[in-house]
């Protein structure tokens, strides 16, 4: 369990990055800090492994004030994954993963064996073990970064926009991997992102931040979606624009979910509708999905403008 007690961080240049921040991050759950750029997410994250020290307030891990712990030792017990992998360019993949265990005195041979296992864990082929980071794709590098973060078998894993620099398809893949890993390993994950969809997908607890590390709302994704605390949160999660209000649209190709702007949002689980299968209906005919709030077009019965995705 990680606890922030009235933590404030003012940088030497006067920037107030985090102000009077208090929060409990439960063990074995994923907490996501989400907010726009400059809202203090990274600063909050880096205070957990003392890469940044608070100006005032304290942070406890499992009841111990980390301000009293030696930073180097603390960091070796906490996994850290950053946006552009941060791998050592002059070391092979396997040695990158084995770096910290070897610093802690694990014999080289054992550290490398463990590293190979970790490559399996993060879904990387072992044949990549002897490559250098520059010889990997962005997505592969991030996987190595995760493997390195897991190498000391830490209880806590800090992730700072780890999937921010990869393309959407790879990002979706990595997100699913992380969910799988988290199911298997049950770490206390602290995840930073500016992408609200990613936050809702990965977070057990989502923390929406305003500038200055101020908490706009904390809760499960469902709580936040159902009851945005204020206009700021509503705007941030896209509820005000009707982005979260979906309705069903029937096409000859099948049923799709469409948001209030008529943009394609997804499909309902369970396959194509009978009407589409029969092919007897008109090309676009709408039915309001029962379990989602109806959008404006659902009532009008008129074909949605731009109902054709993009």
């Amino acid at each position, binding site marked *: 369990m990680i606890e922030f007690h009235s933590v404030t961080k003012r940088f030497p240049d006067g920037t107030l990055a985090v102000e009077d921040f208090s929060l409990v991050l439960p063990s074995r759950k994923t907490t996501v800090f989400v907010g726009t750029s400059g809202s203090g997410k990274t600063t909050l994250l880096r205070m957990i492994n003392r890469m940044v020290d608070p100006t005032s307030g304290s942070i406890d891990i499992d009841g111990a004030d980390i301000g009293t712990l030696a930073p180097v030792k603390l960091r070796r017990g906490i996994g*850290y994954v950053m946006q552009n992998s*941060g791998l050592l*360019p*002059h070391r092979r993949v396997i040695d990158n993963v084995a770096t910290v265990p070897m610093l802690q005195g694990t014999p080289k041979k054992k550290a490398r064996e463990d590293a190979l296992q970790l490559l399996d864990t993060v879904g990387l082929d072992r044949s990549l073990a002897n490559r*250098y980071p520059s010889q990997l794709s962005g997505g592969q590098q991030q996987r190595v970064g995760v493997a390195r973060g897991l190498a000391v078998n830490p209880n806590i894993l800090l992730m700072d926009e780890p999937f921010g620099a990869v393309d959407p398809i790879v990002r979706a893949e990595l997100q699913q991997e992380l969910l799988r890993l988290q199911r298997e390993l049950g770490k206390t994950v602290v995840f930073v992102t500016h992408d609200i969809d990613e936050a809702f997908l990965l977070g057990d607890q989502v923390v929406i931040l305003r500038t200055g590390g101020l908490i706009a709302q904390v809760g499960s994704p469902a709580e936040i979606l159902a009851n945005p605390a204020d206009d700021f949160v509503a705007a941030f999660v896209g509820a005000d624009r009707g982005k979260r209000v979906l309705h069903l649209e029937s096409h000859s190709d099948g049923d799709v979910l469409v948001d209030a702007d008529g943009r394609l949002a997804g499909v309902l689980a369970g396959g194509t509708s009978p009407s589409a299968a029969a092919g007897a209906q008109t090309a676009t005919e709408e039915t309001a999905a029962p379990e989602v709030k109806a959008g404006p077009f659902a009532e009008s019965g008129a074909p949605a403008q731009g109902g054709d995705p993009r």
Partner: protein
Amino acid sequence: MNYFADAVAWLFDPTNYVGSNAIGNRVLEHLGFTLLTLVFASVIAIPLGFFIGHTGRGRGLAVGTAGAFRSIPTLGLLTLVALSVGIGLTAPYAALTVLAIPPILAGAYTGFEAIDRATIDAARAVGMSAGQIVRKVELPLSLPLLMGGLRSATLQIVATATLAAYVADIGLGRFLFTGLKNLDYAQMLGGSILVILLALLLEGIFTVLQKLVVPRGVAAGRPTDIWAGFTKLAR
């Protein structure tokens, strides 16, 4: 071509290979002088460059001083030092050390500067101590540019070391100054050829060394011009 033939004849004349003025002797003196000067300059410039690179402190001062050092005419400095400390080896060692410091400083410093800050930050974040970061990250990654600085310094010293013979009885410069005094052009040209050969030899050695120290995995796309980063900062 006549002078050249004479110079070659001089180079192969067995009588030039005996005594204290023997060619072999002078080559070794020249080489020894060059390497020792390189050591002097390195002892000053490498720690200084690493300190600046690692901490980012004293950058402006170093760039300015190195720039000023570069523009000092070596012969003038040599004469000046010789006038104050007298004839002998002190003056050429001092003058050439001053000449060699800027490229080594630039190499050491830009080597550090060229390392991606995110790499160092990540090394710190996973739990490397300050000493481990210097040894395991900053040193290996800065070595190629440092080696470039050493190479550039070495070539400058080996060529300019001929001037040492102006105030001391040392090195291949003896042949040039003696030849000039006696209008013995064969000896002058022969001496020059030896300096050139020595420079080429050292250049070859450094080419190999520089290849060897580039960490695999960063071989592609690395800046090798030590002055690139330096002059950019100076502007």
